[in-house]
C-alpha cells in the first residue's frame, strides 16, 4: 500500500497521555455506517475493524481534527474530548 499513513505520522511530534486516550469507541456489536466510514476517512488512520467487524481506535497518532467527532455525532458511538493540556499532537510548522 503506497499511502500508508504511519510513515507520515512518524514525522510528527506527539506527547501521548499514556493510559488516557482522549477518544474512545463505545462497546458495540454492529458499527454504524458512519463509524465504519472512519476506518477510511480518519486522516491519521486511527480507526480499524477487528475480526468480529467491530471498529476500534488507537488514538496515539490523532491530529485532533475532530472529523470523527462530527461524523459520529448523530450515532453517539464515540466519546471525544481534547487531550489534557500539553498532551497530544505538537505541530512544528502547522
Amino acid at each position, binding site marked *: 500500500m*503506497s*499511502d500508508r*499513513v504511519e510513515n*507520515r*505520522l512518524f*514525522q*510528527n511530534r506527539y*506527547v501521548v497521555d499514556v493510559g488516557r486516550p482522549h477518544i474512545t469507541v463505545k462497546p458495540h456489536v454492529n458499527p454504524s455506517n*458512519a463509524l465504519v*466510514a472512519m476506518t*477510511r*476517512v480518519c*486522516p*491519521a*488512520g486511527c480507526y480499524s475493524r477487528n475480526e468480529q467487524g467491530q471498529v476500534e481506535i488507537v488514538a496515539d497518532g490523532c*491530529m*485532533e*481534527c*475532530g*472529523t470523527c*467527532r*462530527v*461524523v459520529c*455525532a448523530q450515532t453517539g458511538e464515540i466519546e*471525544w*474530548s*481534547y*487531550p*489534557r*493540556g*500539553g498532551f*497530544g*499532537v*505538537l*505541530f*512544528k*510548522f*502547522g
Partner: protein
Amino acid sequence: MKQNHFDAIVVGAGPSGNAAAYTLAQRGLNVLQIERGEYAGSKNVQGAILYADALEKIIPDFRDEAPLERHIVEQRVWMMDDAGHTGMHHRSDDYNEDKPNRYTILRAQFDKWFSRCVKEAGATVIYETTVTSLMRDASGWVVGVHTDRNGEGITADVVILAEGVNGLVGRTSGLREELKPENVALAVKEMHFLPQEVIDARFNLKGNEGVVIEAMGTITEGMVGTAFLYTNRESISVGIGCMVSDFTDVGQATPHGLLDRFKAHPSIRALLEGSEIKEYAAHLIPEGGYRAIPELVGNGWLVVGDAGHFVNAVHREGSNLAMTTGRLAAETVADIILSGGSCSRHNLAAYVEAVKDSFVMKDMKKYKDIHGFLKKGRHVVDLYPRLMNRAAQTWFRVDGVDKKSKESTIVREAWRARGIGGLMGDAFKLMRAWR
C-alpha cells in the same frame, strides 16, 4: 476585585483569540488567555496565507517582527483533469511593495510570535491548559471557565470563545449546535522542504517572492474540494481538502491517498521533486457559509473566528476573518467594561453590529448560496475542469483540422456532457449564488 477574577477570559490562542487578547490588553483590561497547546500554534493548522490588512489593524508594524515566509507576487488558479491543468495566472511586480498584502507563513511560528505580542501587551497567558466547561451563575449568565488544572474555576466579566472550528466548550455548553458533516471540510497537508534556491528556480522567484497555487478538478475525485500549494522560504505547503460528508458518502478515497495522488499529478510532481517531508497535518475548515454562522453573543460570552464559522470558502479566507472578529469582539468588550457597563447579551450585540458593518459579514452574505449550489451541483467541480482541459487541447493542438470544426467539437462536447439545459442552468444558478 477578587483575586482570581479577570475582566475577560479568552479561550484559545489562534488568530482570533490572539487578536482579541491583544486588543483587550492594549486597552488596559485585565485579560487571561488559556491555550491547550504547549505553545501557541502547537495545535493550529492552516495553509497558510496571512492577509496583512487584518493584522495591520491590530499591530501596524507587524512586518518588523513577525516570522513571515514569502510575500505573494503570483496567484495561479488551476482547473485540473487527470493529465494536466488549464488555469489563470496573475503575477505583478506591483506586489513587490513596501508593505505587501499577502504572505505565506508557518502557523506554529507565527502564532508563537503573536502570542508573545499578547503577553508583552500585558495579558496573562497560560498554556498546556484545556478549558473544559463554562461557569454559569443561577440565571445562566456565563461568569467564567473551568479548566483541567483548576478545580474551582476562574471568573471573568466576559468569556471570548476563540476555540476554533472543533471547539467543544461552546458546544457542550449548548451555546451552538454540533457541526454538520456537510458544513465542514477536512484538509490534510504536508510540509515539503527544499533549498530556497531550488524553490526560487522552480517557481521563477527572487528574494522573498512567493507563489500560490489553488487547484480544483478531478483531483478531488468527484468530491467538493480544492487543493493548494504555497511556497514558503525553504518549504512548500501542499494540501487538499474536501467536504466531510463527501468523504464519507461520495468518495472512496482516504484523505492521505487523495493527497498522494495530487502530489503525483503530472502538473505537481516536478514542483515537489526531491523534497523532504517533515510534517503531516489535518484540520477541519468551517465551510458552511453564512447560514451556518451560530448565535454570536449571549449573557457573558461572545464567539469569534472559526468557532463562529467565519470562513469565506470561495476566496480561501479565514485567518483574516478570525483576526477581524477577534478584534471587533475585544473592542466591544473594552468599550462596555471601560464605561462600567455589563457584558449582557444586549450590550454585546454591538459586536454583531460591528461584524455586520465590516467586510466579514458582507462577504459571508454575498456567498450565502454558494454552499448550497455546490452541494446540489457537485458535478461542476469535476465536469467543467474536464471540459476546459478538453477544449484547450482541441484548440491548441495543430492537427490539420480547421478551426471552425474545432469550435464545433468544443461546443458539441460540452453539450453532450451536460445538455443545453444543464449548461444554462448551471450558469444561471452560479450567477444567482455569486450575486
